[in-house]
């Protein structure tokens, strides 16, 4: 599904990712853990194509295609989805309208028929309900005045509606209390499938109690310094990131 080879990324003059290798097969869930500033969000942005990041070395292949050659929206339409650490406020665009526009943009790009208002509404409601997202919330401007938990639930709703091939969750747990965390985790788990891969980025092990990964990587100083099974997350919970040369978490 995804293969990252010797990826070096700079922002301005600063090298932030310093040789990342990562291979994720279809159906796998990989966790990327690491202290603040280790480059986790940078990796998520480089995968989704955000401006301002320069790849100085290395490659990324997604479903056999050169991901770095694709534009932001081409990647999205090919099935890359980033659940943002800090979702952006979109004043004046209701969540509902946004979801419809996004879904239909992707359907159109894939040569599928656009959904009409009635079918769309039915679909959205069925996906919103398990996430405790009310019609009222769908009528509000996207992310504007949303609480931390509402933002993360809205991101999860987008993901479940867009059904990506590769979902990248950047600190989807931050700012959530335990109940909200469970709701979001249930939403994510419902999407696990043999065809879908996930990268779950987190600072804390807590989220991984609910979204159990197949593989855990530790990112520190722009490099993957350790890779292991799900037990690695528990180990980190005990020892912290200090042994990896980072400041205490």
């Amino acid at each position, binding site marked *: 599904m995804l293969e990252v080879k010797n990826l070096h990324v700079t922002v301005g003059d600063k090298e932030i990712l310093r040789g990342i290798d990562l291979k994720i097969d279809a159906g796998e869930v990989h966790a990327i853990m690491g202290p603040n500033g280790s480059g986790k969000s940078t990796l998520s942005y480089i995968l*989704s*194509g*955000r*401006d301002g990041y320069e790849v100085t070395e290395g490659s990324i292949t997604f479903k056999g295609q050169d991901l770095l050659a694709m*534009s*932001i*929206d081409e*990647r*999205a*339409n090919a099935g890359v*989805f*980033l659940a*943002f650490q800090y*979702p*952006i*406020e*979109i*004043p*004046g*665009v209701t969540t509902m309208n*946004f979801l419809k*526009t*996004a879904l239909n*943009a*992707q359907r159109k*790009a894939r040569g599928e028929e656009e959904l009409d208002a009635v079918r769309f509404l039915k679909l959205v409601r069925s996906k919103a309900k398990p996430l405790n997202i009310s019609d009222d919330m769908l009528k509000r*401007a996207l992310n504007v005045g949303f609480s931390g938990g509402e933002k993360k639930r809205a991101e999860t709703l*987008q993901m479940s509606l*867009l059904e990506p091939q590769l979902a990248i969750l950047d600190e989807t747990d931050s700012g959530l209390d335990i109940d909200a965390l469970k709701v979001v985790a249930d939403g994510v788990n419902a999407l696990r499938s043999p065809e879908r891969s996930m990268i779950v980025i987190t600072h804390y092990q807590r989220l991984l109690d609910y979204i159990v990964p197949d593989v855990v990587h530790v990112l520190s100083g722009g490099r993957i310094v350790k890779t292991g099974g799900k037990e690695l997350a528990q180990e980190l919970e005990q020892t912290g990131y200090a042994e990896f040369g980072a400041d205490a978490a």
Partner: protein
Amino acid sequence: MTGAAKTLVENFERERKTLPGASGWLDVSRAKALAAFAEAGLPHRRVEEWKYTDLRRLLDDVSLTTAPDHLGPVDLPATAFEAMDCYKLVLVNGRFRADLSSLAKLPKGVELHPLANVLSEQWAKKLIDRQSDHDGATRIIDLNTALMRDGMALRIRKGVRLDKPLHLVFLAADDGGAHARHLVELEEGASATIFQSHLAAGASSYFVDQVSDIHLGADARLEMVRLVDEGAKSFHLSSLRAELEAGADFGCFTLTMGGQMQRQQSFVRFNGEGAVARVNGASALRGRQMADTFCHTDHAVPACASDTLYRTVLDGSATGTFQGKVVVQPDAQKTDGRQMTNALLLSREASMNAKPELEIYADDVQCAHGSTIGELNKDAIFYLRARGLNERDARRLLVTAFLDEALDRIAHDGARDALRAVVANWFSAEGAAT
């Protein structure tokens, strides 16, 4: 006198005898107004209220000789409000065309006429001859008083409601100047909805100069929705004077898009307590278009509320201007006055001048004003593209949303949808303009 002012004065001298009301009181008013206009000349940059729009220079580029009567067929352009059932009053080159209008079956108590028919009536005289504070912005109304040829005169008697919207269609069929005056008198408790469309129908280089004089009696209600979508080489000048008695409710929304240059002035004055004025608008401009909005609200009495939101989107090397002033007189306690203007610049060459002002002489008031000028949020564009929208659609969604927040203020559902569709068309025309 410059060339443009000279042409306008000559128009008057040539037409004076044939203008409506030539034998009555109006001729005296016209002569007085012309003399004042001739003395002041056209406003220019050193007049504070025209700081960003030098009429003296700009009018040199447009044909000012009075456009001819146009009695023949007109290519009626489709109007945004077409789908709604309305009374319709059509002016071509500023003159009433009965054959194109539909004014049948007006409710009892509603008088709707071309201007020329009401000039002998006292209510009309009172509206036309009304004193404005003669400042840099209102002074230009003199030009209209001297040259106005026709227009719409609407009077609604006490407590009567106009049962469907009245659509005033103002078409420019031939090059030249058109000077029109509209009178609206709503007596106590009367109510009406008026749509206005300003469109080119064959003319290229032309000048529209219209003044609307509005008086709302106690508890009267007027909702106006205006679309100013003139031809690419036109100059549109509108002045709207509204006076509100106690408890009256006035809403006015103006969407400006098509012309080379447009100046919209509004002067709202509260005469009685508890009245409300919502004067809102939006502009979408590209190429070398210019739009200048001047918005003056006079809280002369206590306990009135005024609210203004103007949103401007500027692409290409377009220029937008918003000058606003809310004055709260010493007696006007419990005033609620709000004025906000926001502009979105889509290109580096576009520019916006914004000058919202508050002048407060009372102490127990709630007033707020502000202005922002910004660009599209890059993070928002990334976010939308990361969900699959291409760059063009992402930008379009954000710009539409920006304008929508102003359009949301249109109380009439059908009119709001109609103007939303006009905005959507504006995007489709992208690339067509230079």
